[in-house]
């Protein structure tokens, strides 16, 4: 370790840190309970997902009497904190659910196990290669996507229809979208959508529609301050016209659908991931529908099938084979798929996806149909974003706040962001 010791206590401190780092490489002391292998399996989600997961896990334990699975879950934000502390303490779980944004950091930090070593147990042939590649870092398969999702314009069907504005249709462009928002504002008096300027995800869709990307292959920024200025000028103008939600509304977004403008009844649509959009069912009584995201002016689609979550194995696990078996079960087992439904996004296993699609109910079905309608029209997903993106996602939102509260011009804020992003990606 390139440590530098000044005082005695510094040395002991360094030693302690070293201990911790080493602990990351040692076994995490997995116990063998009653002759059984015990696997810790953590994930984020809600009670519904918990219930289905419990049932799937029970089935797995029945099939593998020698393995006991200890599942644990919390909400997304809490989960991220917890996993970061556990992983840095050398205590990562055997099987963990991971987000797209975590892969790079966890893989390069040595937290994840090379799944290629368990190829015989963990089958991935049924997964679309483009999608599977998103779990690779430096050519090593560190994680396997478990479900897929894509972005969508989710809208209040009744309000939109009543307004007389033509419904969104496939292949619409961002200009079409903006015109619809203006028309909706004019006819209904309410903003047409959430101001998408805050969302790094929406920006990415817009950017990809122009053939660019958020990050380059080597993890640097894939766009310039000019690009971002154009995006923010575009959204900022719509906001000033009242065609999209005001700063006061947009700032209340906290990740739950309830606190989006659509959820609060102050706008007619929202751009969101397809699976969470189901939350709107309970709060938009007149019903919702999903439309594709707008594409670039030349029709280039910006949205893509994104792995909604991954499964990875802790590098320190004492039972890599069993852990791989569990992942294989969750991804490839027919029965498991029936239990899990689309609770983790639409299944990635192509056979299972086709088999289970007719069995899906309610909103799962809506999402499944929506994805099926896009099948074959989208481009491959980008590789997992560099670890700095975790922080940049928040920075993006913060910098746009400065625009929407009219404290900075789009140009100033964009240049700020690019500076911050470059610093973040360098470190």
């Amino acid at each position, binding site marked *: 370790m390139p440590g530098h010791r000044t005082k005695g206590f510094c040395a002991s*401190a360094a030693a302690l840190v070293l201990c911790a780092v080493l602990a990351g490489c040692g076994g995490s002391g997995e116990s063998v309970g009653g002759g059984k292998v015990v696997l810790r399996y953590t994930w984020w989600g809600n009670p519904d997902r918990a219930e289905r997961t419990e049932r799937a896990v029970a089935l797995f334990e029945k099939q593998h009497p020698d393995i006991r699975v200890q599942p644990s879950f919390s909400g997304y934000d809490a989960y991220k904190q917890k996993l970061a502390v556990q992983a840095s303490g050398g205590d990562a779980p055997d099987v963990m659910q991971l987000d797209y944004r975590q892969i790079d950091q966890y893989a390069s930090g040595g937290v994840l196990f090379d799944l290629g070593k368990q190829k015989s147990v963990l089958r991935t042939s049924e997964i679309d290669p483009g999608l599977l590649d998103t779990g690779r870092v430096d050519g090593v398969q560190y994680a396997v996507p478990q479900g897929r999702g894509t972005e969508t314009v989710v809208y209040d069907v009744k309000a939109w229809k009543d307004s007389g504005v033509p419904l969104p249709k496939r292949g619409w462009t961002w200009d079409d979208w903006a015109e619809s928002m203006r028309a909706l504002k004019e006819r209904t008096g309410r903003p047409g959508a959430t101001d998408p300027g805050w969302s790094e995800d929406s920006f990415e869709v817009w950017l990809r529609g122009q053939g660019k990307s958020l990050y380059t292959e080597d993890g640097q920024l894939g766009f310039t301050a000019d690009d971002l200025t154009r995006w923010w000028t575009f959204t900022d103008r719509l906001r000033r016209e009242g065609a999209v939600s005001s700063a*006061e*509304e947009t700032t209340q977004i906290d990740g739950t659908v309830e606190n989006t403008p659509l959820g609060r009844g102050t706008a007619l649509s929202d751009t969101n991931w397809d699976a969470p959009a189901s939350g709107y069912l309970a709060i938009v009584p007149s019903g919702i529908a999903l439309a594709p995201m707008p594409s670039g002016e030349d029709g280039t689609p910006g949205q893509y099938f994104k792995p909604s979550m991954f499964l990875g194995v802790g590098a320190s696990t004492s039972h890599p084979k069993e852990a791989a078996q569990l992942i294989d079960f969750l991804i490839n087992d027919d029965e498991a798929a029936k239990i899990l439904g689309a609770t983790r996004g639409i299944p990635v296993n192509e056979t299972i996806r086709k088999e289970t699609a007719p069995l899906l109910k309610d909103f799962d079905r809506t999402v499944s149909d929506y994805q099926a309608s896009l099948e074959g029209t989208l481009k491959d997903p980008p590789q997992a974003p560099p670890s700095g993106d975790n922080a940049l996602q928040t920075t993006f939102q913060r910098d746009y706040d400065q625009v929407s509260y009219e404290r900075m011009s789009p140009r100033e804020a964009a240049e700020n962001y690019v500076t911050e992003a470059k610093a973040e990606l360098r*470190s």
Partner: protein
Amino acid sequence: MTTTAIPAEAQRTAGPAPKRRPKREREGAAWVFLSPWVLGAVVLTLLPMAVSLYLSFTDYNLFDPPRWVGLRNYTQMFTEDPRYWRSVVTTVTYVVIAVPLQLALALVVALALKSMKHGKAFYRSAFYAPSLLGASMSIALVWRAVFNDGGTVDNLLGTGGWVNKPGWALLAVALLTVWQFGAPMVIFLAGLQQIPAELYEAAAVDGAGKWRQFLSVTVPMLSPVLFFNLVLQTIQAFQVFTPAFAISAGKGGPADSTLVYTMYLYDRGFVASHMGYASAMAWVLLLVIGIVTAVLFRTSRSWVFYASEGDR
């Protein structure tokens, strides 16, 4: 009960030492009593502090081994990070709003309760009730509803929402802290209870009215308690995290207006994984709190009145 009003100069010295029998054997006994604390202080406080001090001179992303970078975290913090300075300003503003408001409210309620004959216990419990809650997620959601556009405050005052306006959001956060004034209130009540009744009687005999009594008896006699509350609440206010985090859903918005110091620290350390930078921020905060506390103690000599200074 004469001894209850003790001078308690805890801040300056370890207080009165037993004067008799300074025997060596008693020293052994002292260490036995202290042993849990010593163990905790070394293992759970000093050692982690040392580690965090070391980390503050490194680049540490939680996963790779820490890399020594000297003072870079500190220079970056002071010279290259405008958001850091915004968080400093936000925190100081918060301290200046929340601490006086909370103490004033706690004092007023304590004074009102003190002069009450009936229902004291009821009021005390009722006023304490909000402090039982902490800043849970549900209370944060309630707060957001009450202080939102069209919420109760908007309806009553016509100010519009607070939580979604950069100029107002911090006030809404501060009010959550102010609202939970139970602990300082109880401490004030305790202090008021200790003021000997004879002092009021003597003042009344001298013809002092109620207001005069308040100024010449209550205020000086209560000043040590006020000081204790002031120091404690100031320290806590500099470390404020939960109310701001909960109300802004972890973002510190709108437009960074509630991004207080510890929240930005948390953000750098746990979201952006710059643990070294976060540790440096923590050490700067520790120093600043230390300095502020020292200044408070220094000024206290001129306004805090210790009734029985010579009791030692």
